[in-house]
Structure formats: C-alpha cells, structure tokens
C-alpha cells in the first residue's frame, strides 16, 4: 500500500469520527466510563512522566502529611504522604499500572484458557466434553477467593504469581459459556460445509468456530475485569498479593490502616476510590457490551 491511500484512509476515518461518536451515543454507549478507563490506561502508561516523586522512596520526616488543602499540607505532596513519608499521588499513579497490568493479563490468560477449553469441549463432544466439563464443574464448586489465597500463600507474593493464580481461578466461566455457544455454532451450515470440504478439526475450530464465539469471550472479559481488580486488591490487602514496597492500591489500603485510627483519611479513602472508579467503569462498559452484542448473556 502506498502512502497516499494510507493517508486518505486515515483522513476519512478521522472525518467520520464525529458521526461515529454520535451513533454510539444514540446506542447508549457509556462515554464517561470509557473515558475514565482510557484515562487510567494513559496514566498507567505515562506513570514515570506524571508522578512527581519516586513512589517507593519516602522521607521519614514527611510522614503522614495531609493533602495540600489541609493545614500542614504542602503543594509538593498534593495528596499527602503515608506512614513512610512516600508521596500518595505518585503511589496512586504507579498503582494504576499494577491494576491495569494484573487486570488485563488475568482476563487475557483466563479468557484464552477458558475459550480454548470451551471450544474443544463443545466441538469434540463425547468423553472429551465430559472430562473437561466435570473438571470445570469441580473447579467452579470451589471457593474462588479461598483457592486464590491458598495458592498465593504457598507460592508467595509477586506480580506474575498473582496473575497466574487469578487466571487459574477465573477461567471456568469462559469454558462454560463458550461451550454452550459452540454447541449451537457447530450445527450451522458453514461448519458442516467445512467438514465436507475436508478441513481438519483444528482448522474448523480455529477458523470457523472461534470467530463466532469471540464476542462472548470479550463481553465476559470486560464483565470480569472489575471482579479481578477487586480480588487482586483483596489479596494484596491480606499480604499474599503484590509484595511491598510496590505501589498497589490494595497494598496502600493495608498500609493506610496504620493511620486509620488517627483519622488520616486520605490513606484509606483515595486508593479505595481509585479501585471503585475503575471497577465501576469496567462494569458499566461490560453491561453495555453485554446487552449490545450478546443477547444470550443478558441474564447473567
């Protein structure tokens, strides 16, 4: 492709943007939640540029400094400091990184495992289906949070560990939903034709079935993003998630307990508000996607 066509294509896309946005607006697209999520992503990406201080190093002389607008607050630490004198604003900004990375990685890994198992189970049927579904049921029957705590307690804290643990706990929902969808897709004419045309089972699953169930997986992933972030915060709060001194929001809440009885509200209210804002936005976006793209998931 030469440069001119690429340019004109880009131009037409940009020109069409306002009408596209108007279209989405009419569909009840949750604009504000999407902008919030986008902002959080951008903050996560540009954290080193945006944060005024090093999030992991504090000055002990500056401990428990309140936000700038309260007495004793300084403009230098706009949202105050914690029990080690670390800048709360910088920790919140870098904390976005951990929530975004953990949240996205978990839903991607869990979604990939669950979707793959769901497709294999639904398409191959027979004993493969029985085996996979029995394991899924057994896994679903176990208490997710406790299993995560148990895993975290034996493998120890760490960002990659927490991603693996949460993904290991969260894949079941995808497997169940996707399998159900595959059962109906597999009976459609194009799949039968592909069988007649001599496509291998692997090709059919990858080229004909996957594209037809991927929407459901994406909707489910958006709906789960919030739960995953809350779970990560909970595990970090208990000390089995993200290890200190990393600035995770859940860890900040655990540290904030040290100043709670003294009334240092900013250490508790601010990280929690960040979690809530992100989870709420993800839930609103997920709800909209669910109603829009997937009538079958409406009852979830």
């Amino acid at each position, binding site marked *: 492709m030469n440069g001119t066509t690429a340019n004109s294509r880009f131009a037409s896309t940009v020109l069409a943007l306002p009408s596209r946005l108007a279209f989405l607006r009419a569909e009840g697209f949750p604009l504000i939640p999407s902008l919030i999520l986008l902002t959080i992503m951008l903050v996560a990406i540009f954290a080193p540029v945006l944060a005024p201080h090093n999030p992991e190093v504090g000055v002990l002389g500056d401990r428990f400094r309140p936000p700038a607008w309260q007495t004793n607050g300084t403009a230098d630490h706009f949202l105050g400091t914690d029990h080690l004198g670390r800048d709360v604003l910088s920790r919140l900004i870098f904390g976005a990184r951990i929530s975004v990375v953990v949240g996205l990685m978990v839903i991607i890994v869990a979604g990939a495992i669950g979707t793959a198992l769901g497709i294999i189970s639904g398409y191959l049927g027979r004993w493969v289906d029985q085996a996979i579904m*029995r*394991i899924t*049921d*057994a*896994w679903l*029957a*176990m*208490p997710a*949070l*406790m*299993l995560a*705590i*148990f*895993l975290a*307690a*034996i*493998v120890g804290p760490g960002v990659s560990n927490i991603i693996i643990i949460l993904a290991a706990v969260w894949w079941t929902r995808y497997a169940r939903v996707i399998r159900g969808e595959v059962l109906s897709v597999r009976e459609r004419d194009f799949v039968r034709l592909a069988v007649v045309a001599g496509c291998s089972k692997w090709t059919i699953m990858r080229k004909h079935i996957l594209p037809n169930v991927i929407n459901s997986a994406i909707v489910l992933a958006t709906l789960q993003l*919030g739960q995953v972030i*809350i779970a990560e*915060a*909970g595990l970090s*709060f*208990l*000390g*089995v998630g993200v290890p200190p001194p990393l600035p995770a929001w859940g860890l900040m*809440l655990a540290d*904030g*307990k040290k100043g*709670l*009885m*003294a*009334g240092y*509200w900013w250490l*508790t*209210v601010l990280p*929690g508000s960040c*979690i*809530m804002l992100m*989870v*709420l936005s993800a*839930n*609103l976006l997920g*709800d909209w996607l669910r109603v829009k793209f997937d009538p079958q998931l409406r*009852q979830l």
Partner: protein
Amino acid sequence: MKKFILKRLGLAAISLFLLSLTIFLLIRISGDPAVLLAEPGASAADLEAIRNQFGLNRPLWIQYVSFISHLFRADFGQSFYYRTDVFELYLSRLPASLMLAAAAMVFSLIIGIPTGIVAAVRVNKWQDSIGKIFALLGLSMPSFWVGLVMILFFSVYLGWLPSSGSGTVLHLVMPAIALGWVFAAAHMRLTRSSMLEVLGSEYVKLARLKGLPEALVISKHAFKNALIPVLTLAGVNLVIMVNTAVIVETVFAWPGVGRLLFEGIAFRDFPIVQASILLGGTMIVVVNLVVDILYAVIDPRIRYEG
C-alpha cells in the same frame, strides 16, 4: 428422582476428590512440602524427621491415600502457633463466623428485597434507575474498603461504634454491613428479575382482571412466589459469606474462621491454611448439592435435564 440424586451425589464426590487432589498436588509442586509442614525455622534434622513422619519419600499415590485417610478421621494436624488440634480450633471459631454471616444476611435481605420489589414494580422509572445504580455501586466497592471507610466515619470521627473486636451487638454492626453490602446488591438484582417474571405471569394477570387492588396483587400473589429463588440464593450465600469473610474479619479483628485463615497465612501456620481451605470448600460443595436437590424437588423438569 433417585437416579438424579445419585448422579448429583456422584458429581459432588468428584468435586471433593478434585479439591483434595488439587490441594495435595499444589503443596508438592510448589516446593518442598516438608518446609511447609515443618515449623518456620526448622533445622535440617527436623525436616528429615517431618519427611519420615509424613512419608514424603514414598510414592505419590500412597501419600495421597494416607492424606485422605487422615482427612476422613478429621485429622488436620496440629497448629504450630496455637499448639492445638486444627479441626477443634476451626470448630471453635465457626460460631462467630456464622453469627456474622447471619447478621450480614439479615442486612442484605432487609435492603435487597424491598428495593428489588420497588424496582420491579416501577420498572424503567426513576426508582428502577436508582436501584440499578445502587446495585452497580454495591458490586464495585470492595467490601473491606467499605469496612475501612465505615471505621473512619463511625469509630474515628463520630465515635459511635467500636472499630474492632467482638462481644456486643454494636461490634457486629459494621462488619455485618461491610460483608452484607455486596450481597444486598445481588439479592436486589435477583428479587427484581424474579418479581418481573412473576408479574408477567398468567395468575397475576388473572388477579388483576378480578379487580383486586394492585397492592394486594403485589403483596399476596406476586411477592410470595418471587421470593422462592431469592431465599434459595440466600441459603447458598450464607455459606459463601462464611468463606469470603476473610478480609472483612481481618479488618474488624472478628474472631471467626476467616480471621483464623489470615492468622494461618501471617504466621506461616500451614496446617491451619490447609484445613480452612479444605473445610470451606467442602461446605460449599455440600450446599450446592443440597440446593440442586431442593430445586429438583420443587421443579420436576430439572430432574430430566441432566
């Protein structure tokens, strides 16, 4: 019916088998199990003694059989920290957890059912929208954060409620609200959808045609039937509450099984962690089984589906 119950029993047994196998294997995959089973700071000789005592150098399947036979005798080992039998310790903490869960359940039903009914009766009006926002907020706030913010307001600023511990009814208020909050949102959603379904049914239409006042139709005909699924879910949720209260119990220093699990993690008291997970998982599997069977009793169609 007999066949259905037998099948469900079989599935529950498979779940329990996989649960025990998962726990058993994870302990052995994640590193040297002797290190987990020995007290923190054990010497090399101690580790060797542990290996002999638990037979950790025997083949895996023999180890598993002995692991299971200990579980069947309710022998979960000794706590390193408390120096007592772990199973007894768990049982002694259970009443406090049940009390907290019961209080949280009462709170969640008092909030969830009326708001759900109002949202269903005034569907797509402003009351419904407020209900939706409330449900979304409930599902978007981590329960432990709700707890922390409540401590800040009601204990630190206002001084009305004790921030931690147990003993009086006042101690129960904040943990119950923190734990019940998420479930209130879930119960509201279910009440709303169940109520909407009932309100569209033939017998409600008939009651209206008979000219009964709307309040009577809702309270007498619709409400009672809409309540069945909500109460069933509440039964399951009670057990789930006991098992997810870890963080809330930690925040409020409530002496239940969740706090016990947290102490087990904090003090690296492995027998406690293992017993908490196995017993909690068993409770959930059993409750799911009971609910499945109850549903089949109520609705015969389910028996034939599988």
